[in-house]
């Protein structure tokens, strides 16, 4: 089964679609709208966007060339007190350009409408309600807060964003945490700029495009008025009744699902100039990134590393060993400054001396050193979970870079920026979508990042039961791959006392002794093994001369992780996982088995998930075996109910008791 977590809909109507009779303009508030008490479709909505209109056009100036002007208009209705927060609006805009002028943003037409004694009362926003602040060197923010807002009010406002950045446009989002009754977005692009429009989400929207003639008048350097004509591509997008998007658990990134129109510059074809390609294919994206000095040069600027490579590889022969030594060396030496990027910032050389750097710097150091060591290694572009899943080839579709090394004709993925990663074990947020591997000639190919091999957690427990319900047991837990990685990230730097204190509580007030752990922070490619003995009065109840045992002990799940009734978004597990639990029980003398839990086997979607529970008994011993395999990292929303039912059925079986009676 393939997860379909993005639905791209292209509905092109090349004929003109008649715009509906209803007018979507500011200033046309009606008494009926103000009187409306609840949203007609979603009665729980605290507020609704009656319409959102956007327009992107171009203006020309002889000095700076074309710039984009984005205009947005909103009309918002407040139904409940909880919706009042929509009366505070903030917009951030970029001011950190190196070669361009700062973006400009201005609010206007902000009005609150109320119904007072059957009459419409307008209150305009004054200066007092507008705010501006500098967030940091890259971003500014402007905000407004509407006057006189109550339950029932309608708010209108407009803002205009002027930007010389015509490579990246702000996304036109049309889905929010409240319903949107209507939206439209108009774009007018001069023929010189070819943009690709991409639509995200599951909503049906309408779209028309046509070629018309456009013109610009401007003042030349001598102050003379000039005019020029060109062809222009006009597009119009609109949609109705977009439902609210609500947060849900087990979601990788809500932005992967939000209804939105995005634009990416594909090509620039100025008159009498060669056509300049920006992005067309992922291959093209990779090649553009590769050609940038902060990428291409930095993966070949490496002579300063040679000495150190020689030093650390003095006695190391096999390629695999060489890779491991270099990986650990870079991992230990370098420290991540928590900045993601596939471009270097201060450069690999400076980063190396500082011992700190961003993702590109650290992984390029690794890459360069591997190359010196004679290992075939290439950069792999990645989009982290936070960056989402791009729907079209774009440079912003990636935000991260790792390294693929070739060892014995097998590909190994490496990220040296964190302390507990190892070959083929990457930070969890990089297990997203596909990576793109770029070869030294600039060509590239798509590769899988999510592992096929499941990460395992195997526990085996042997317990001795006393007549009063006390249990003495011994446990061995083995964790491999990502399960081991997760454990190390959470507990690697914790001291043993505080870890055990936490563990005792988590496992239901046990007394733990003889604790041992191997490979906690050493040999991090190897599994972690924990062993301990425990004593507890829980998990067995002695009632009326009988013993009721929860055979899964502290592994007994008490809750179905899926409680929601409905699901909008896909269910994200991250990586394939396998859990196994063996419990061996010694029956106390004088007791015999009255009831054993029934063996169960459940599965979903051709074993994408399978669960099984089995119980065997022989003499005075009972063996209980539980396994759970999750073979996909993500499941589509339409499988939610099946998944929920599966876990519910298994939960009932897992909670069945073993009952022992006096012989």
């Amino acid at each position, binding site marked *: 089964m393939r997860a379909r977590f993005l639905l791209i809909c292209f509905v092109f109507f090349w004929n003109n679609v008649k715009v509906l009779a209803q007018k979507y303009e500011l200033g046309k508030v009606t008494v009926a709208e103000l009187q409306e008490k609840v949203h007609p479709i979603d009665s729980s909505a605290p507020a609704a966007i009656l319409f959102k209109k956007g327009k992107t056009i171009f203006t020309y100036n002889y000095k700076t060339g074309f710039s984009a002007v984005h205009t947005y208009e909103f009309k918002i209705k407040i139904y409940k007190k909880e919706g009042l927060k929509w009366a505070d609006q*903030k917009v951030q805009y970029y001011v950190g350009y190196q070669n361009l002028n700062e973006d400009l943003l201005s609010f206007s037409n902000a009005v609150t409408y109320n119904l007072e004694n059957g009459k419409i009362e307008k209150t305009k926003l004054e200066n007092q309600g507008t705010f501006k602040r500098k967030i940091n060197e890259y971003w500014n923010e402007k905000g407004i807060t509407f006057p006189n807002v109550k339950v029932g009010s309608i708010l209108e406002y407009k803002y205009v964003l002027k930007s010389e950045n015509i490579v990246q446009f702000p996304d036109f989002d049309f889905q929010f945490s409240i319903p949107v009754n209507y939206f439209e977005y108009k774009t007018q692009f001069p023929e010189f700029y070819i943009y690709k429009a991409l639509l995200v989400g599951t909503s049906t929207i309408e779209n028309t495009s046509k070629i018309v003639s456009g013109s610009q008048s401007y003042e030349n350097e001598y102050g003379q008025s000039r005019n020029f004509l060109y062809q222009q591509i006009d597009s119009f997008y609109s949609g109705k009744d977009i439902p609210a998007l609500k947060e849900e658990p087990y979601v990788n990134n809500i932005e992967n699902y939000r209804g939105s129109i995005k634009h990416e510059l594909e090509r620039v074809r100025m008159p009498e100039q060669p056509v300049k390609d920006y992005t067309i294919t992922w291959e093209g994206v990779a090649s553009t990134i590769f050609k940038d000095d902060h990428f291409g040069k930095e993966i070949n600027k490496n002579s300063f590393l040679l000495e150190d490579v020689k030093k650390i590889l003095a006695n190391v022969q096999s390629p695999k060993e060489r890779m491991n030594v270099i990986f650990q060396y870079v991992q230990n030496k370098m420290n991540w400054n928590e900045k993601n990027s596939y471009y270097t910032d201060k450069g690999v050389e400076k980063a190396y001396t500082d011992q700190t750097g961003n993702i590109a710097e650290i992984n390029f150091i690794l890459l360069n050193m591997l190359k010196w060591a004679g290992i075939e290694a290439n950069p792999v572009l990645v989009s982290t979970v936070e960056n989402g899943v791009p729907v079209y080839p774009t440079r912003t579709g990636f935000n991260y870079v790792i390294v693929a090394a070739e060892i014995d004709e097998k590909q190994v993925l490496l990220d040296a920026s964190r302390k507990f990663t190892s070959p083929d074990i990457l930070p969890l947020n990089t297990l997203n979508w596909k990576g793109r591997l770029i070869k030294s000639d600039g060509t590239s190919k798509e590769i899988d990042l999510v592992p096929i091999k499941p990460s395992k957690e195997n526990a085996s427990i042997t317990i001795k039961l006393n007549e009063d319900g006390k249990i003495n047991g011994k446990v061995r837990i083995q964790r491999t791959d990502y399960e081991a990685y997760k454990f190390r990230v959470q507990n690697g730097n914790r001291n043993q006392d505080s870890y055990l204190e936490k563990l005792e509580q988590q496992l239901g007030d046990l007394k733990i002794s003889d604790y041992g752990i191997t490979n906690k922070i050493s040999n991090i490619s190897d599994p972690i093994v924990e062993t301990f003995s425990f004593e507890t009065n829980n998990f067995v109840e002695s009632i009326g001369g009988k013993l009721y045992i929860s055979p899964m002990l502290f592994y007994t799940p008490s*809750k179905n992780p899926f409680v929601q009734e409905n699901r909008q978004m896909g269910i994200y597990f991250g990586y394939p996982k396998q859990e196994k639990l063996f419990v061996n029980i010694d029956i106390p003398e004088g007791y015999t088995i009255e009831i054993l839990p029934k063996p169960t086997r459940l599965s979903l979607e051709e074993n994408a998930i399978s669960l099984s529970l089995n119980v065997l008994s022989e003499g005075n011993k009972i063996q209980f075996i539980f396994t759970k395999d999750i073979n996909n990292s993500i499941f589509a929303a339409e499988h939610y109910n099946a998944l929920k039912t599966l876990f*519910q059925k298994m939960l009932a079986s897992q909670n069945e008791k073993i009952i022992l009676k006096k012989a």
Partner: protein
Amino acid sequence: MKNLCYALFFLIFTSHSFAQKNNYSILKISDSLKDNANAVLRLDQMDINILSQRSMNIKKQRVITVLNQKGLNEIDGYEYYDKSTYIKSIEAVVYDAFGNEIKKIKRKDFKDQSAASGSTLFSDNRVLFLDYTPITYPFTVAYSSEIETSNTAFIPRWYFIGGYNVSVENCILNVSFPNNLGFKKKEFQFEDFKIKKTVDTDTKLSYEAHNILAQKAEDYSPYPSDLYPKVMMGLEHFHLEGVDGTATTWEAFGKWYGDKILAGTTTLPEETKTKIKALVGNETDLVKKTKIIYDYVQKKSRYVNIAVGIGGWKPMLASDVDRLGYGDCKALSNYTKALLQVVDVPSYNTILYGDRYKSNIQSDFVSMQGNHMILAVPNGNNYIWLECTSQDDPFGYQGTFTDDRDVLVVKPQGGEIVRTTIYEDKGNTQNGKGTYTINENGDFSGNLKIASQGSQYASKSRVETFQPHEKEKHYKDYWGNINNLKLGKITFTNDKENIRFTEDVQIAASNYGVISGNKMIFTVDAFNQNSDNVKRIRNRKNPFQIQRGYLDTDEIEINLPAGFSIEFLPQNYELKGKFGEYKTEIIKNDSNKLTYKRSMFLNKGKYSNKEYDEYRLFMEQVSRNDNAKIILTKN
């Protein structure tokens, strides 16, 4: 290994003589200071130099050895600034484990950012902060800064120990001040710590402390600021954003605040006055008049956090709030006061600490304190307290944010310290009444009416404002003990007059009864399981406190499935102790009908560290008994 270490140390020691001068090597830290510590403050020094009523200079030096990643937060390398506070210098030097300098961070390398948090709409405060990526642990940062401010109303409090899991090797506070400004100080919780007062004259004050061990956080503890030593300082003659002030007594302070800051802020347009008078009409009863006004404010206005004006202390004009319909706590309190004035009801601005954790205004230390404002309306010998930022709170209700604490009531003739409403433990009730039925497959269906009063009203009534998906989540968490829970009809009755919130909820769940062979097992107490998880803490050091007590009572009818007989019924149970009382009872009405009664009463109180285990056992017994199960056998 040890030898190698020494050899290395020696090598560096001899080649870099400055390392010796600073003594920042981690080898110098005694083992006891490393116990439980993520960071060791080698030096924490502040030099406060009050030059005049309108000028204060503060120098900070912090030398912190960060032992691991969790200790990073202890560096505290930041300074706030605004119109009246100027950062003269700020810098940091980083040393490796042996005390060798590895990096110098100059002012321009500090990050400059707006200090407003997400909930604040606007603030002109900014912050310069240190953004350093450690290359190895442990390491040491020597941070120093100097700021200058004209605000002498707030002299920083001095904490000898800043928080948990950090130890302090040397701690020094030096203050100098002119002898005519009425400098004063108050010391707190010095008892168990060796703190030396080295100088205490009419122009100088100094303290020193050495080798304070790292403390561990423990559940149910008072805030660290109520546990560990601190010094509060203030001036009788101070300055705040262009206004000189005096605070010798609360009366004087209150009068100053009223005259200089609040005066002239309560004027309203005539139109509004007329409207309000019409609204109140002929009503003469003080409480009823106040209620009408409070209701008007709740419907008209909303809370917006705007931190501008005199250090955030001067409220927006009432006429602006009237026009705009929004404001922060001061603006809305002041606006309500202005409206009350129109109908001749006097009321007073009240300054306090708003927090679930009860914090007092230090009544014996006259100074600028508090973080929140409400309104006090005198009613006979008592006050009606109005929380003006809430659009939902019942009239006069204080919930858990402003209850039971000392506050400053600013009257025209001067300020006065008053205690706010105390909600008695026995009045913080939750009363559950309902039934449930188990069928032969173990499926559950039932309904429950829960009425909550007193401080429990505050935590329950907010459910009414939830969106459907939040509501679903809330109940599925609340009844996390019932798997596969399905919610049916939910009805709320919010009786604001009597401050009682009632939830009427229908629920169903499959497989509530676990079937093993011919037996069915399920927990009797389905609706109200004790959720207080009291952790085992070895060698607890801190005292603990229960801030608010409560009384829960439940009476549930249980219908058992036909065709089963009872194999086992839990015994009636009773537990009494200093922490509270707990009692459960099961009455067998006929062959398949039971009545389950439960009551749980918890006292509020302050207890010593020694009593913690007793409390844990008390709660554990409650939880254990809440989990008692019925066993049925198929006939």
